[in-house]
Protein backbone atom coordinates (compact mmCIF):
# COMPACT_ATOMS: atom_id res chain seq x y z
CA UNK A 1 0.00 0.00 0.00
CA UNK A 2 1.28 3.41 -0.82
CA UNK A 3 1.87 5.84 1.94
CA UNK A 4 -0.87 8.31 2.56
CA UNK A 5 0.39 11.60 1.24
CA UNK A 6 -2.47 13.99 1.78
CA UNK A 7 -4.85 13.54 4.67
CA UNK A 8 -8.14 13.44 2.82
CA UNK A 9 -11.27 13.91 4.89
CA UNK A 10 -13.54 12.37 2.28
CA UNK A 11 -11.37 9.24 2.13
CA UNK A 12 -11.39 8.90 5.90
CA UNK A 13 -15.13 9.27 6.16
CA UNK A 14 -15.66 6.81 3.29
CA UNK A 15 -13.43 4.34 5.09
CA UNK A 16 -15.25 4.78 8.39
CA UNK A 17 -18.66 4.44 6.69
CA UNK A 18 -17.49 1.20 5.04
CA UNK A 19 -16.20 -0.02 8.40
CA UNK A 20 -19.48 0.73 10.11
CA UNK A 21 -21.49 -0.91 7.33
CA UNK A 22 -19.35 -4.04 7.50
CA UNK A 23 -19.63 -4.17 11.27
CA UNK A 24 -23.39 -3.69 11.07
CA UNK A 25 -23.68 -6.41 8.42
CA UNK A 26 -21.69 -8.85 10.54
CA UNK A 27 -23.65 -8.02 13.70
CA UNK A 28 -26.92 -8.35 11.76
CA UNK A 29 -25.92 -11.75 10.38
CA UNK A 30 -24.97 -12.93 13.87
CA UNK A 31 -28.30 -11.71 15.25
CA UNK A 32 -30.26 -13.44 12.49
CA UNK A 33 -28.33 -16.68 13.06
CA UNK A 34 -29.08 -16.50 16.78
CA UNK A 35 -32.76 -15.90 16.06
CA UNK A 36 -32.78 -18.82 13.60
CA UNK A 37 -31.43 -21.03 16.36
CA UNK A 38 -34.29 -20.04 18.64
CA UNK A 39 -36.81 -20.72 15.89
CA UNK A 40 -35.14 -24.08 15.29
CA UNK A 41 -35.42 -24.95 18.97
CA UNK A 42 -39.16 -24.26 18.96
CA UNK A 43 -40.85 -27.44 17.77
CA UNK A 44 -43.60 -27.10 15.17
CA UNK A 45 -45.14 -30.42 16.11
CA UNK A 46 -45.25 -31.90 19.57
CA UNK A 47 -45.54 -35.56 20.39
CA UNK A 48 -47.31 -35.34 23.71
CA UNK A 49 -50.98 -35.68 24.58
CA UNK A 50 -53.58 -34.48 22.08
CA UNK A 51 -55.51 -31.43 23.21
CA UNK A 52 -58.91 -32.86 22.16
CA UNK A 53 -59.92 -36.27 23.36
CA UNK A 54 -62.93 -38.35 24.25
CA UNK A 55 -63.71 -39.36 27.82
CA UNK A 56 -66.66 -41.69 27.22
CA UNK A 57 -70.43 -41.56 27.01
CA UNK A 58 -72.54 -39.40 29.35
CA UNK A 59 -73.98 -42.58 30.91
CA UNK A 60 -70.50 -43.48 32.19
CA UNK A 61 -70.75 -40.61 34.65
CA UNK A 62 -73.95 -40.93 36.75
CA UNK A 63 -75.16 -38.00 38.81
CA UNK A 64 -72.96 -37.34 41.81
CA UNK A 65 -69.85 -38.53 40.03
CA UNK A 66 -66.59 -36.95 41.04
CA UNK A 67 -63.87 -38.97 39.38
CA UNK A 68 -60.31 -38.32 38.31
CA UNK A 69 -59.13 -39.51 34.89
CA UNK A 70 -55.47 -39.91 35.72
CA UNK A 71 -54.12 -40.31 32.17
CA UNK A 72 -55.71 -37.04 31.07
CA UNK A 73 -55.04 -35.19 34.32
CA UNK A 74 -58.66 -34.04 34.58
CA UNK A 75 -61.55 -34.61 36.97
CA UNK A 76 -65.11 -35.23 35.74
CA UNK A 77 -67.89 -33.81 37.90
CA UNK A 78 -71.60 -34.45 37.33
CA UNK A 79 -74.55 -33.11 39.27
CA UNK A 80 -77.89 -34.07 37.72
CA UNK A 81 -77.80 -33.00 34.09
CA UNK A 82 -74.83 -30.71 34.61
CA UNK A 83 -71.35 -32.04 33.75
CA UNK A 84 -67.97 -30.33 33.93
CA UNK A 85 -64.34 -31.31 33.37
CA UNK A 86 -61.83 -29.66 35.70
CA UNK A 87 -58.07 -29.81 35.20
CA UNK A 88 -56.12 -31.56 37.96
CA UNK A 89 -52.90 -29.76 37.01
CA UNK A 90 -52.01 -27.57 39.97
CA UNK A 91 -51.88 -23.94 38.89
CA UNK A 92 -48.89 -23.43 41.16
CA UNK A 93 -46.17 -25.59 39.64
CA UNK A 94 -47.83 -28.27 37.60
CA UNK A 95 -48.07 -31.22 39.96
CA UNK A 96 -51.16 -33.44 39.72
CA UNK A 97 -53.62 -32.60 42.48
CA UNK A 98 -55.44 -35.31 44.37
CA UNK A 99 -59.25 -35.44 44.10
CA UNK A 100 -61.44 -35.84 47.17
CA UNK A 101 -65.10 -35.24 47.98
CA UNK A 102 -64.31 -31.89 49.52
CA UNK A 103 -62.04 -30.57 46.79
CA UNK A 104 -58.49 -30.91 45.54
CA UNK A 105 -55.13 -31.00 47.34
CA UNK A 106 -51.64 -30.73 45.84
CA UNK A 107 -48.91 -32.98 47.25
CA UNK A 108 -46.02 -30.80 46.12
CA UNK A 109 -46.45 -27.46 47.86
CA UNK A 110 -49.70 -27.84 49.75
CA UNK A 111 -52.13 -25.88 47.57
CA UNK A 112 -55.78 -26.64 48.39
CA UNK A 113 -58.87 -26.05 46.27
CA UNK A 114 -62.60 -26.38 46.96
CA UNK A 115 -65.00 -28.56 44.93
CA UNK A 116 -65.16 -26.03 42.10
CA UNK A 117 -61.39 -25.58 41.99
CA UNK A 118 -61.24 -22.27 43.86
CA UNK A 119 -58.07 -21.77 45.89
CA UNK A 120 -58.70 -22.12 49.61
CA UNK A 121 -55.12 -22.43 50.81
CA UNK A 122 -51.49 -22.75 49.85
CA UNK A 123 -49.42 -20.93 47.24
CA UNK A 124 -51.59 -21.56 44.14
CA UNK A 125 -52.13 -18.22 42.34
CA UNK A 126 -55.40 -19.07 40.58
CA UNK A 127 -58.20 -21.59 40.54
CA UNK A 128 -58.13 -24.83 38.57
CA UNK A 129 -59.01 -24.56 34.87
CA UNK A 130 -62.33 -25.75 33.54
CA UNK A 131 -62.34 -27.21 30.03
CA UNK A 132 -64.96 -27.04 27.31
CA UNK A 133 -67.03 -30.21 26.95
CA UNK A 134 -69.08 -31.09 23.87
CA UNK A 135 -70.89 -34.11 22.49
CA UNK A 136 -69.13 -35.67 19.53
CA UNK A 137 -71.24 -37.19 16.69
CA UNK A 138 -70.47 -40.69 17.94
CA UNK A 139 -72.23 -39.92 21.21
CA UNK A 140 -69.11 -39.54 23.31
CA UNK A 141 -68.12 -36.54 25.39
CA UNK A 142 -65.19 -34.62 23.99
CA UNK A 143 -62.86 -32.41 26.03
CA UNK A 144 -60.84 -29.58 24.50
CA UNK A 145 -57.93 -28.53 26.72
CA UNK A 146 -57.14 -25.67 24.36
CA UNK A 147 -60.54 -24.17 25.18
CA UNK A 148 -60.70 -23.19 28.84
CA UNK A 149 -64.13 -21.99 29.95
CA UNK A 150 -65.34 -19.87 32.85
CA UNK A 151 -65.79 -21.60 36.16
CA UNK A 152 -69.38 -22.77 36.51
CA UNK A 153 -69.85 -23.34 32.77
CA UNK A 154 -71.48 -26.76 32.70
CA UNK A 155 -72.34 -28.97 29.79
CA UNK A 156 -76.01 -29.88 30.13
CA UNK A 157 -76.82 -33.42 29.17
Amino acid at each position, binding site marked *: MSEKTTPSNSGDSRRSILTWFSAAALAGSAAISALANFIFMKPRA*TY*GQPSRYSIGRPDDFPSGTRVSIDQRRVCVVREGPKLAVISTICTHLGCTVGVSDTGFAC*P*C*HGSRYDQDGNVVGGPAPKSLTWYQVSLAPNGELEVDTNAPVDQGTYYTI
Partner: protein
Amino acid sequence: MSAPTEEKTGIVGALAAFPRNVWDSIFRNPLPDSDLGASRTSFTNFFLHIHPVKVHKNSIRPLYTLGLGVMSFVTFVVLTVTGVLLMFYYVPSTTQAYDRMLDLRGSVAFGTFLRNLHRWSAHAMVAIVFLHMGRVFLTGSYKRPREFNWIIGCILFLLTLFASFTGYLLPWDQLAFWAITVGTSIAAYAPLIGKKIQFLLLGDQAVGQEALLRFYVLHVVVLPMLITLLVAIHFWRIRKDGGLSRPADADNMPDGKQLRVEIVPNSQKSGTFGLMGFVRGPFTKVGNVPDNTVYAWPNLFVAELFVFVVTVAALLVVSLLFNAPLEEPVNVLHPPNPAKAPWYFLGLQELVSYSAFWGGVGVPGIEVLLLMLVPFLDRKVSGVGKWFAKERFLANTLFVTFALLNVIFIIVGTFFRGPNWAFVSPF
Protein backbone atom coordinates in the same frame (compact mmCIF):
# COMPACT_ATOMS: atom_id res chain seq x y z
CA MET B 1 20.10 -28.78 30.00
CA SER B 2 23.40 -30.51 29.81
CA ALA B 3 25.88 -29.43 27.20
CA PRO B 4 25.33 -31.30 23.95
CA THR B 5 27.69 -34.21 23.79
CA GLU B 6 29.00 -35.81 20.66
CA GLU B 7 26.03 -37.67 19.25
CA LYS B 8 26.74 -40.98 17.63
CA THR B 9 24.99 -40.87 14.28
CA GLY B 10 25.52 -44.49 13.34
CA ILE B 11 22.49 -46.75 13.33
CA VAL B 12 23.72 -48.78 16.31
CA GLY B 13 24.35 -45.69 18.37
CA ALA B 14 20.96 -44.27 17.35
CA LEU B 15 19.19 -47.46 18.40
CA ALA B 16 21.01 -47.52 21.73
CA ALA B 17 20.07 -43.92 22.40
CA PHE B 18 16.52 -44.35 21.08
CA PRO B 19 14.59 -44.34 24.40
CA ARG B 20 16.64 -41.48 25.74
CA ASN B 21 16.16 -39.44 22.56
CA VAL B 22 12.42 -40.01 22.49
CA TRP B 23 12.19 -38.98 26.15
CA ASP B 24 14.28 -35.86 25.53
CA SER B 25 12.17 -34.91 22.52
CA ILE B 26 9.09 -34.83 24.73
CA PHE B 27 10.52 -33.42 27.95
CA ARG B 28 12.99 -30.74 27.06
CA ASN B 29 14.15 -30.24 30.65
CA PRO B 30 15.29 -32.70 33.24
CA LEU B 31 13.62 -32.57 36.64
CA PRO B 32 14.72 -29.27 38.09
CA ASP B 33 17.51 -29.08 40.64
CA SER B 34 17.99 -25.32 40.40
CA ASP B 35 15.89 -22.16 40.26
CA LEU B 36 16.59 -21.90 36.55
CA GLY B 37 15.42 -25.46 36.10
CA ALA B 38 12.31 -24.77 38.15
CA SER B 39 11.38 -21.82 35.99
CA ARG B 40 12.08 -23.73 32.79
CA THR B 41 9.94 -26.62 33.98
CA SER B 42 6.79 -24.56 34.29
CA PHE B 43 7.65 -22.29 31.36
CA THR B 44 8.18 -24.95 28.72
CA ASN B 45 5.55 -27.50 29.68
CA PHE B 46 2.17 -27.16 27.95
CA PHE B 47 0.23 -28.17 31.04
CA LEU B 48 2.38 -26.41 33.61
CA HIS B 49 2.58 -23.08 31.85
CA ILE B 50 -0.96 -22.44 33.04
CA HIS B 51 0.85 -20.86 35.97
CA PRO B 52 3.46 -18.13 35.89
CA VAL B 53 6.99 -19.12 36.76
CA LYS B 54 6.71 -17.38 40.12
CA VAL B 55 3.66 -16.72 42.27
CA HIS B 56 3.12 -14.57 45.31
CA LYS B 57 3.58 -16.30 48.66
CA ASN B 58 0.12 -15.18 49.70
CA SER B 59 -1.47 -17.17 46.85
CA ILE B 60 -0.35 -20.51 48.27
CA ARG B 61 -1.32 -19.82 51.88
CA PRO B 62 -3.71 -22.73 52.54
CA LEU B 63 -5.77 -20.73 55.04
CA TYR B 64 -6.22 -17.89 52.56
CA THR B 65 -7.79 -19.75 49.62
CA LEU B 66 -8.68 -23.02 51.39
CA GLY B 67 -7.98 -24.56 47.98
CA LEU B 68 -11.63 -24.10 47.05
CA GLY B 69 -11.05 -22.92 43.48
CA VAL B 70 -8.85 -25.89 42.63
CA MET B 71 -11.33 -28.14 44.43
CA SER B 72 -14.19 -26.85 42.24
CA PHE B 73 -12.12 -27.58 39.15
CA VAL B 74 -11.24 -31.08 40.39
CA THR B 75 -14.92 -31.95 40.87
CA PHE B 76 -15.60 -30.70 37.33
CA VAL B 77 -12.82 -32.93 35.95
CA VAL B 78 -14.14 -35.93 37.89
CA LEU B 79 -17.65 -35.18 36.58
CA THR B 80 -16.40 -34.95 33.00
CA VAL B 81 -14.53 -38.25 33.19
CA THR B 82 -17.32 -40.20 34.93
CA GLY B 83 -19.94 -38.47 32.76
CA VAL B 84 -18.27 -39.56 29.52
CA LEU B 85 -17.98 -43.11 30.85
CA LEU B 86 -21.67 -43.20 31.81
CA MET B 87 -22.60 -41.94 28.33
CA PHE B 88 -21.35 -45.23 26.89
CA TYR B 89 -24.22 -47.05 28.61
CA TYR B 90 -26.98 -44.44 28.71
CA VAL B 91 -29.86 -43.94 26.27
CA PRO B 92 -31.89 -40.71 26.52
CA SER B 93 -35.23 -42.38 25.87
CA THR B 94 -38.25 -42.46 28.15
CA THR B 95 -38.65 -46.19 27.55
CA GLN B 96 -35.01 -47.11 28.12
CA ALA B 97 -33.41 -44.58 30.45
CA TYR B 98 -34.63 -46.10 33.71
CA ASP B 99 -33.73 -49.63 32.60
CA ARG B 100 -30.25 -48.37 31.81
CA MET B 101 -30.01 -47.10 35.38
CA LEU B 102 -30.84 -50.60 36.61
CA ASP B 103 -28.32 -52.04 34.14
CA LEU B 104 -25.64 -49.82 35.63
CA ARG B 105 -26.29 -51.59 38.91
CA GLY B 106 -26.63 -55.08 37.58
CA SER B 107 -24.64 -55.60 34.43
CA VAL B 108 -22.01 -52.90 34.04
CA ALA B 109 -18.63 -53.31 35.68
CA PHE B 110 -18.17 -50.51 38.23
CA GLY B 111 -21.56 -49.12 37.07
CA THR B 112 -22.92 -48.41 40.53
CA PHE B 113 -19.63 -46.92 41.60
CA LEU B 114 -19.39 -44.63 38.56
CA ARG B 115 -22.93 -43.39 39.02
CA ASN B 116 -22.27 -42.79 42.71
CA LEU B 117 -19.11 -40.89 41.89
CA HIS B 118 -20.92 -38.77 39.29
CA ARG B 119 -23.84 -38.00 41.59
CA TRP B 120 -21.82 -37.17 44.69
CA SER B 121 -19.31 -35.12 42.69
CA ALA B 122 -22.21 -33.10 41.29
CA HIS B 123 -23.49 -32.39 44.81
CA ALA B 124 -19.94 -31.57 45.90
CA MET B 125 -19.39 -29.24 42.96
CA VAL B 126 -22.50 -27.18 43.78
CA ALA B 127 -21.43 -26.87 47.42
CA ILE B 128 -17.74 -26.18 46.72
CA VAL B 129 -18.37 -23.63 43.97
CA PHE B 130 -20.62 -21.77 46.41
CA LEU B 131 -18.00 -21.95 49.17
CA HIS B 132 -15.40 -20.69 46.69
CA MET B 133 -17.69 -17.75 45.95
CA GLY B 134 -17.94 -17.19 49.69
CA ARG B 135 -14.15 -17.13 50.05
CA VAL B 136 -13.80 -14.61 47.24
CA PHE B 137 -16.52 -12.42 48.74
CA LEU B 138 -15.36 -12.56 52.35
CA THR B 139 -11.80 -11.64 51.36
CA GLY B 140 -13.06 -8.75 49.21
CA SER B 141 -11.41 -10.28 46.17
CA TYR B 142 -14.13 -9.21 43.73
CA LYS B 143 -12.91 -5.63 43.80
CA ARG B 144 -10.95 -3.76 41.16
CA PRO B 145 -9.32 -5.08 39.00
CA ARG B 146 -11.15 -8.40 39.44
CA GLU B 147 -14.74 -7.26 38.76
CA PHE B 148 -15.01 -9.08 35.44
CA ASN B 149 -13.62 -12.34 36.80
CA TRP B 150 -16.16 -12.16 39.63
CA ILE B 151 -18.97 -11.93 37.07
CA ILE B 152 -17.53 -14.88 35.13
CA GLY B 153 -17.50 -16.75 38.44
CA CYS B 154 -21.15 -15.87 39.11
CA ILE B 155 -22.10 -17.16 35.65
CA LEU B 156 -20.10 -20.34 36.32
CA PHE B 157 -22.07 -20.84 39.54
CA LEU B 158 -25.36 -20.52 37.64
CA LEU B 159 -24.11 -22.89 34.92
CA THR B 160 -23.13 -25.38 37.64
CA LEU B 161 -26.68 -25.28 39.02
CA PHE B 162 -28.16 -25.61 35.53
CA ALA B 163 -25.86 -28.53 34.66
CA SER B 164 -26.93 -30.23 37.87
CA PHE B 165 -30.59 -29.48 37.16
CA THR B 166 -30.45 -30.92 33.61
CA GLY B 167 -28.64 -34.00 34.91
CA TYR B 168 -31.41 -34.57 37.42
CA LEU B 169 -33.91 -35.60 34.73
CA LEU B 170 -31.75 -38.24 33.07
CA PRO B 171 -32.38 -41.25 35.38
CA TRP B 172 -36.09 -40.83 34.54
CA ASP B 173 -37.25 -41.81 38.01
CA GLN B 174 -39.99 -40.19 40.06
CA LEU B 175 -37.63 -37.68 41.66
CA ALA B 176 -36.34 -36.68 38.21
CA PHE B 177 -39.73 -36.24 36.63
CA TRP B 178 -41.37 -34.22 39.37
CA ALA B 179 -38.33 -32.11 40.21
CA ILE B 180 -38.14 -31.05 36.56
CA THR B 181 -41.91 -30.56 36.32
CA VAL B 182 -41.72 -28.20 39.28
CA GLY B 183 -38.49 -26.53 38.12
CA THR B 184 -39.67 -25.79 34.60
CA SER B 185 -43.00 -24.54 35.95
CA ILE B 186 -41.02 -22.05 38.03
CA ALA B 187 -39.39 -20.84 34.78
CA ALA B 188 -42.89 -20.25 33.42
CA TYR B 189 -43.45 -17.61 36.11
CA ALA B 190 -40.80 -15.34 34.61
CA PRO B 191 -42.53 -12.23 33.30
CA LEU B 192 -43.50 -12.01 29.61
CA ILE B 193 -41.26 -14.77 28.24
CA GLY B 194 -41.73 -17.36 31.01
CA LYS B 195 -44.12 -19.62 29.10
CA LYS B 196 -41.92 -19.44 26.00
CA ILE B 197 -38.81 -20.38 27.99
CA GLN B 198 -40.66 -23.34 29.47
CA PHE B 199 -41.82 -24.49 26.03
CA LEU B 200 -38.32 -24.14 24.58
CA LEU B 201 -36.80 -26.09 27.48
CA LEU B 202 -39.33 -28.90 27.34
CA GLY B 203 -39.92 -28.98 23.58
CA ASP B 204 -43.51 -29.82 24.49
CA GLN B 205 -46.27 -28.81 26.88
CA ALA B 206 -45.17 -31.24 29.58
CA VAL B 207 -42.07 -33.17 30.61
CA GLY B 208 -41.66 -36.08 28.19
CA GLN B 209 -39.39 -37.55 25.53
CA GLU B 210 -38.59 -34.17 24.00
CA ALA B 211 -37.60 -32.73 27.37
CA LEU B 212 -35.42 -35.76 28.15
CA LEU B 213 -33.57 -35.40 24.84
CA ARG B 214 -33.12 -31.65 25.26
CA PHE B 215 -31.88 -31.93 28.81
CA TYR B 216 -29.50 -34.68 27.73
CA VAL B 217 -27.93 -32.58 24.97
CA LEU B 218 -27.68 -29.57 27.29
CA HIS B 219 -26.18 -31.72 30.02
CA VAL B 220 -23.55 -33.60 28.04
CA VAL B 221 -22.57 -31.09 25.35
CA VAL B 222 -23.75 -27.52 25.64
CA LEU B 223 -23.22 -26.82 29.35
CA PRO B 224 -19.87 -28.63 29.74
CA MET B 225 -18.53 -26.75 26.70
CA LEU B 226 -19.72 -23.42 28.08
CA ILE B 227 -18.28 -24.22 31.50
CA THR B 228 -14.95 -25.25 29.97
CA LEU B 229 -14.73 -22.03 27.98
CA LEU B 230 -15.61 -19.84 30.97
CA VAL B 231 -13.24 -21.75 33.27
CA ALA B 232 -10.44 -21.08 30.77
CA ILE B 233 -11.26 -17.37 30.77
CA HIS B 234 -11.57 -17.46 34.58
CA PHE B 235 -8.06 -18.92 34.94
CA TRP B 236 -6.56 -16.61 32.33
CA ARG B 237 -8.03 -13.55 34.02
CA ILE B 238 -6.50 -14.54 37.37
CA ARG B 239 -3.06 -14.02 35.82
CA LYS B 240 -4.01 -10.93 33.86
CA ASP B 241 -5.55 -9.38 36.97
CA GLY B 242 -2.27 -9.77 38.81
CA GLY B 243 -2.63 -13.16 40.46
CA LEU B 244 -4.82 -13.89 43.46
CA SER B 245 -5.82 -10.96 45.63
CA ARG B 246 -3.58 -10.11 48.59
CA PRO B 247 -3.51 -7.49 51.32
CA ALA B 248 -2.38 -4.03 50.26
CA ASP B 249 0.61 -4.27 52.62
CA ALA B 250 1.76 -7.63 51.31
CA ASP B 251 4.57 -6.03 49.34
CA ASN B 252 5.69 -3.40 51.84
CA MET B 253 9.39 -2.80 52.19
CA PRO B 254 11.10 -4.76 54.96
CA ASP B 255 11.04 -1.68 57.23
CA GLY B 256 7.25 -1.74 57.00
CA LYS B 257 7.06 1.40 54.90
CA GLN B 258 4.73 1.47 52.00
CA LEU B 259 6.38 0.92 48.70
CA ARG B 260 6.53 4.01 46.52
CA VAL B 261 7.14 3.58 42.87
CA GLU B 262 6.89 6.53 40.60
CA ILE B 263 4.49 5.60 37.91
CA VAL B 264 5.42 7.04 34.56
CA PRO B 265 2.42 7.67 32.34
CA ASN B 266 2.37 5.34 29.40
CA SER B 267 2.90 8.03 26.81
CA GLN B 268 6.14 9.21 28.40
CA LYS B 269 7.58 5.76 28.76
CA SER B 270 11.19 5.61 27.87
CA GLY B 271 14.05 3.26 28.31
CA THR B 272 14.23 -0.38 27.45
CA PHE B 273 12.42 -3.07 29.37
CA GLY B 274 11.99 -6.73 28.81
CA LEU B 275 8.51 -7.85 27.84
CA MET B 276 7.87 -9.24 31.32
CA GLY B 277 8.41 -5.79 32.80
CA PHE B 278 5.27 -4.55 31.09
CA VAL B 279 2.93 -7.33 32.06
CA ARG B 280 1.53 -5.39 35.00
CA GLY B 281 1.61 -1.65 35.06
CA PRO B 282 3.75 0.84 33.26
CA PHE B 283 6.93 0.32 35.27
CA THR B 284 9.27 -2.59 35.55
CA LYS B 285 9.20 -4.32 38.89
CA VAL B 286 12.59 -5.92 38.73
CA GLY B 287 14.68 -4.63 41.61
CA ASN B 288 11.95 -2.16 42.62
CA VAL B 289 9.88 -4.30 44.93
CA PRO B 290 10.69 -6.80 47.65
CA ASP B 291 10.50 -10.26 46.17
CA ASN B 292 7.69 -12.06 47.96
CA THR B 293 7.30 -14.64 45.23
CA VAL B 294 8.15 -18.30 45.11
CA TYR B 295 8.60 -20.65 42.19
CA ALA B 296 5.37 -22.22 40.95
CA TRP B 297 7.31 -25.45 40.56
CA PRO B 298 7.25 -27.12 42.98
CA ASN B 299 5.46 -24.92 45.57
CA LEU B 300 2.17 -24.19 43.81
CA PHE B 301 1.98 -27.40 41.82
CA VAL B 302 2.53 -29.59 44.83
CA ALA B 303 -0.11 -27.64 46.77
CA GLU B 304 -2.57 -28.15 43.92
CA LEU B 305 -1.69 -31.81 43.62
CA PHE B 306 -2.40 -32.12 47.34
CA VAL B 307 -5.84 -30.54 46.94
CA PHE B 308 -6.51 -32.78 43.94
CA VAL B 309 -5.59 -35.95 45.82
CA VAL B 310 -7.57 -35.03 48.93
CA THR B 311 -10.66 -34.09 46.89
CA VAL B 312 -10.62 -37.22 44.76
CA ALA B 313 -9.96 -39.39 47.80
CA ALA B 314 -12.94 -37.88 49.64
CA LEU B 315 -15.20 -38.40 46.61
CA LEU B 316 -14.02 -42.00 46.25
CA VAL B 317 -14.69 -42.79 49.90
CA VAL B 318 -18.18 -41.29 49.78
CA SER B 319 -18.95 -43.12 46.52
CA LEU B 320 -17.82 -46.44 47.94
CA LEU B 321 -19.87 -46.01 51.12
CA PHE B 322 -23.10 -44.48 49.85
CA ASN B 323 -25.19 -45.38 46.83
CA ALA B 324 -26.79 -42.66 44.73
CA PRO B 325 -30.56 -42.79 45.21
CA LEU B 326 -32.78 -44.14 42.48
CA GLU B 327 -36.52 -43.94 43.03
CA GLU B 328 -39.43 -45.68 41.34
CA PRO B 329 -39.68 -45.29 37.55
CA VAL B 330 -41.63 -42.27 36.35
CA ASN B 331 -45.33 -42.37 37.06
CA VAL B 332 -46.87 -39.37 35.38
CA LEU B 333 -50.12 -39.92 37.26
CA HIS B 334 -48.90 -39.88 40.85
CA PRO B 335 -46.38 -37.41 42.13
CA PRO B 336 -44.59 -38.63 45.24
CA ASN B 337 -45.86 -36.84 48.31
CA PRO B 338 -44.03 -34.64 49.14
CA ALA B 339 -42.24 -34.10 45.80
CA LYS B 340 -38.88 -32.61 46.68
CA ALA B 341 -36.23 -31.03 44.48
CA PRO B 342 -32.49 -31.75 45.05
CA TRP B 343 -31.27 -30.25 48.34
CA TYR B 344 -29.64 -27.16 46.85
CA PHE B 345 -32.98 -26.19 45.31
CA LEU B 346 -35.00 -26.96 48.45
CA GLY B 347 -34.41 -23.45 49.79
CA LEU B 348 -36.02 -22.15 46.61
CA GLN B 349 -38.80 -24.72 46.82
CA GLU B 350 -39.51 -23.59 50.37
CA LEU B 351 -39.75 -19.99 49.15
CA VAL B 352 -41.85 -21.15 46.21
CA SER B 353 -44.35 -22.69 48.62
CA TYR B 354 -45.14 -19.14 49.79
CA SER B 355 -45.21 -17.50 46.38
CA ALA B 356 -44.22 -19.02 43.05
CA PHE B 357 -43.21 -15.73 41.48
CA TRP B 358 -41.27 -14.31 44.42
CA GLY B 359 -39.73 -17.61 45.47
CA GLY B 360 -38.86 -18.86 42.00
CA VAL B 361 -38.14 -15.72 40.02
CA GLY B 362 -38.20 -12.54 42.10
CA VAL B 363 -35.95 -13.32 45.07
CA PRO B 364 -33.37 -15.44 43.18
CA GLY B 365 -33.33 -12.88 40.36
CA ILE B 366 -32.61 -10.04 42.78
CA GLU B 367 -29.96 -12.12 44.57
CA VAL B 368 -28.15 -12.94 41.32
CA LEU B 369 -28.37 -9.34 40.14
CA LEU B 370 -26.97 -8.03 43.44
CA LEU B 371 -24.15 -10.60 43.37
CA MET B 372 -23.16 -9.65 39.84
CA LEU B 373 -23.34 -5.91 40.52
CA VAL B 374 -21.54 -5.94 43.86
CA PRO B 375 -18.07 -5.10 42.45
CA PHE B 376 -19.59 -1.99 40.85
CA LEU B 377 -21.58 -0.96 43.91
CA ASP B 378 -18.83 -1.48 46.48
CA ARG B 379 -15.85 0.48 45.19
CA LYS B 380 -13.80 0.92 48.36
CA VAL B 381 -10.51 -0.91 48.01
CA SER B 382 -9.76 -1.20 51.72
CA GLY B 383 -9.86 -4.59 53.38
CA VAL B 384 -8.97 -6.58 50.27
CA GLY B 385 -7.02 -9.77 50.82
CA LYS B 386 -8.07 -10.38 54.41
CA TRP B 387 -10.75 -12.69 55.75
CA PHE B 388 -13.56 -10.80 57.52
CA ALA B 389 -11.74 -7.47 57.30
CA LYS B 390 -13.09 -4.86 59.74
CA GLU B 391 -13.45 -2.37 56.89
CA ARG B 392 -15.83 -4.75 55.11
CA PHE B 393 -18.10 -5.48 58.06
CA LEU B 394 -21.31 -4.37 56.34
CA ALA B 395 -20.74 -6.20 53.03
CA ASN B 396 -19.56 -9.37 54.72
CA THR B 397 -22.47 -9.34 57.17
CA LEU B 398 -24.97 -8.97 54.32
CA PHE B 399 -23.40 -11.84 52.38
CA VAL B 400 -23.27 -14.15 55.39
CA THR B 401 -26.88 -13.26 56.27
CA PHE B 402 -28.12 -14.11 52.76
CA ALA B 403 -26.11 -17.35 52.76
CA LEU B 404 -27.41 -18.35 56.19
CA LEU B 405 -31.00 -17.56 55.21
CA ASN B 406 -30.62 -19.87 52.22
CA VAL B 407 -29.15 -22.58 54.44
CA ILE B 408 -32.05 -22.21 56.89
CA PHE B 409 -34.61 -22.47 54.07
CA ILE B 410 -32.79 -25.56 52.77
CA ILE B 411 -32.86 -27.15 56.23
CA VAL B 412 -36.56 -26.37 56.64
CA GLY B 413 -37.33 -27.72 53.16
CA THR B 414 -35.28 -30.85 53.72
CA PHE B 415 -36.22 -31.90 57.24
CA PHE B 416 -39.35 -30.01 58.25
CA ARG B 417 -41.65 -30.61 55.29
CA GLY B 418 -43.85 -33.66 54.98
CA PRO B 419 -46.80 -34.74 52.82
CA ASN B 420 -48.62 -31.82 51.14
CA TRP B 421 -45.62 -29.70 52.16
CA ALA B 422 -47.09 -29.48 55.66
CA PHE B 423 -44.78 -28.60 58.54
CA VAL B 424 -43.54 -31.72 60.30
CA SER B 425 -41.02 -32.23 63.03
CA PRO B 426 -38.15 -34.56 62.21
CA PHE B 427 -37.64 -35.37 65.88
